């Protein structure tokens, strides 16, 4: 028996001839490498620094601090599923946060009205992005890069390059409340995650979005109104970015115009890392969620060990390259052996 096998599968009756299955196939490393890496990290830090890592505080902070990024990533997932990049999503998050803080904190507007106006603004951003891509025909990369820059100027204009806020305490309670001991933002993540997962994978609309993302021309030939689905996807991305922005300002109270862009890379990293998990080769909800919490766990662990501020960037980069690299290698070996 070679080192890479766990044994022979017994032949049953007239079934197929016995074959060796590698341990990577048994463990489904090509689709679960992130899960194993996550478990490995938990074990590693649990043994290394049990007194600080294995605590409720660590669990709470990992779950809640990642919520904004996860919601933004779930929004990005929809446009990525439709084959489009939305580079303006993070700045849409920033616009939502600044608008909300400005309307409620600086102008005294009722939070409910401010939420509606903020989400309406985000809807307009998504609509403009969608129209630029689907009807004008600008590459999504370029179109959303342009709108991102415009949005940055809008936030600077609204905020006067100041910190705006703080938002009212009542609004902040929308993010700080605990339900059954769990921070409510974690529940928002679950609800939004299930909704996006169901919409993308279990509805005809979701299948048409995925078909559009797989090949616009093929989808169009089989009757999918691809432009409509691209516009819809961009609107959903912007709306979820807006929700993420609302949650962000609810958590930190005051924001500046520069708050958005720093969320872009972690969210995209989660989406791309997610394509190596659970459903390799496809943008998928739970792969993305798994990836982001894997990254958050690693960052938290190393922060507890060392406290270096650069650990976040280092770990995100190393984990992304490692996980994608391993998945690609395993997939190539599997294809080769087949």
């Amino acid at each position: 028996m070679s080192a890479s096998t766990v044994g022979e599968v017994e032949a049953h009756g007239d079934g197929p001839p016995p074959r060796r299955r590698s341990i990577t196939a048994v463990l489904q490393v090509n689709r679960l490498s992130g899960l194993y890496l996550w478990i490995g990290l938990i074990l590693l830090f649990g043994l290394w620094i049990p007194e600080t890592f294995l605590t409720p505080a660590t669990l709470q902070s990992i779950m809640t601090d990642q919520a904004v990024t996860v919601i933004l990533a779930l929004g990005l997932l929809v446009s990525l599923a439709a084959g489009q990049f939305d580079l303006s999503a993070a700045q849409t998050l920033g616009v939502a946060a600044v608008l909300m803080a400005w309307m409620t904190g600086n102008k005294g507007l009722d939070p409910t009205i401010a939420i509606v106006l903020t989400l309406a603004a985000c809807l307009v951003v998504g609509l403009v992005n969608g129209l630029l891509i689907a009807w004008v025909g600008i590459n999504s990369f370029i179109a959303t890069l342009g709108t991102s820059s415009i949005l940055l100027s809008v936030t600077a204009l609204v905020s006067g390059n100041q910190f705006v806020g703080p938002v009212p305490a009542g609004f902040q309670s929308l993010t700080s409340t605990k339900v059954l001991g769990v921070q409510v933002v974690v529940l928002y993540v679950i609800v939004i995650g299930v909704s996006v997962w169901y919409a993308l994978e279990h509805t005809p609309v979701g299948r048409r979005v995925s078909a559009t993302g797989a090949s616009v021309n093929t989808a169009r030939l089989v009757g999918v109104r691809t432009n409509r689905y691209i516009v819809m996807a961009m609107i959903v991305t912007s709306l979820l970015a807006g929700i993420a922005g609302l949650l962000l300002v609810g958590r930190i109270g005051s924001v500046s115009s520069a708050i958005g862009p720093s969320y872009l890379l972690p969210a995209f990293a989660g989406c791309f890392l997610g394509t190596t998990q659970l459903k390799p080769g496809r943008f998928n909800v739970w792969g993305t969620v798994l990836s982001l919490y894997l990254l958050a766990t690693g960052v938290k662990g190393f922060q507890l060990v060392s406290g270096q501020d650069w650990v976040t960037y280092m770990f995100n980069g190393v984990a992304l390259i490692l996980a994608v690299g391993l998945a690609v290698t395993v997939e190539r070996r599997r294809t080769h052996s087949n």
Partner: protein
Amino acid sequence: MRATARIGAAILAAALFLTACSSSSGGDQASSGGSSSGGSGFSAESVSSAKKLIDEYHALPSAPKLAPLSKAPSGDHSVVMISCPLPACADMGNAFKDAAGKLGWQSQVLVSEFTPEAYASAWQSALSAHPDGIFFIGMFPNTTIQAQLQAAKDAGIWVVMNSPEPGTEISADSVIEGAVGPEARYVIWAQLQAAMVVADAQSTDGITLMYSPAAPAYAFQAKEFEKYIKEAGGTVDFLEINQQDIGTALPQQVVSYLQRHPNTRYLVSVDDTLFPGVPDAISTAGIDSPKLIGAAAPAPQNLTWIKDGKQFGTVSGDTTTDVWNAVDIMARLSVQEQPANREPVGVAWVVDQANVDQYPAGSPPQFPGIPDAYTQAWGVS
């Protein structure tokens, strides 16, 4: 099995690499330590001295006392400000236009991005305008604009800087003739922050200073803070952060630090703007919050936190006063007068729960006597 082994090796390698890197340079430095009494509290003498210092700076600052200009300034001058894209810089730009306008001077504010190229380009634009004076916010070490500074000096342009690097020469003969937010300001801010800790603390440890080492003024303030605490017999730990992480990764970094250092009783920040998201993140994690002390520029949220007890206090400055001081130096140079003080400290005010209600309203806040003290000294209305 080879792939599995590879995964294990990769995890191990990454972990070892990161650990090796992190342990080599020390992220939050467990530093210092004078004659620490390890938890028995500061001496009565230190506490008394700290309280006396706080009392001196606890009243709402009054209007600055300025000597009248020796003669009326000409309105035939133009001045340029090289500013930055941060919120506080926008305030300073507005104040600069107001102050120059009172003198009848033409003014221009050039906003540079945080890149050396943009900074140098802004300087070239400023020099091309042939102004009489330039007020600038240092974004990079002055060595990066040495040629421009010399060109300004050669052209007889008055150059005034905001928050110069410690050790920068400020004199009539140097390329920079005046400075607002000088070393002395960071010394007094640091001393007041440290005094707030000493006057309140029940022990000499559990004191952490959070700062960005990339900013020379912050690093200087951190050293001065440590110096005061050590002389009082205490110890200071440092939490080094990146300003780009404000409101995003920073709160999580603070929580992780507090988990590793559960005995932290005071978390002092060189700047109030580092605090957004921190109280909420601490509360969410369910860990005991240390007393938060800020400095420089409390935002409305910081003031709310002070009222609510989520922030212990701050040492407030006022950027508007700084700008009027900068223009005052230029006004005096314009009439061939040697400024009595080329490095005015500006506002340093201890704000806590007892006096936070006195904090001036407005954005930016309107401190008493600003700008009337200046316009009266200049003889303009």
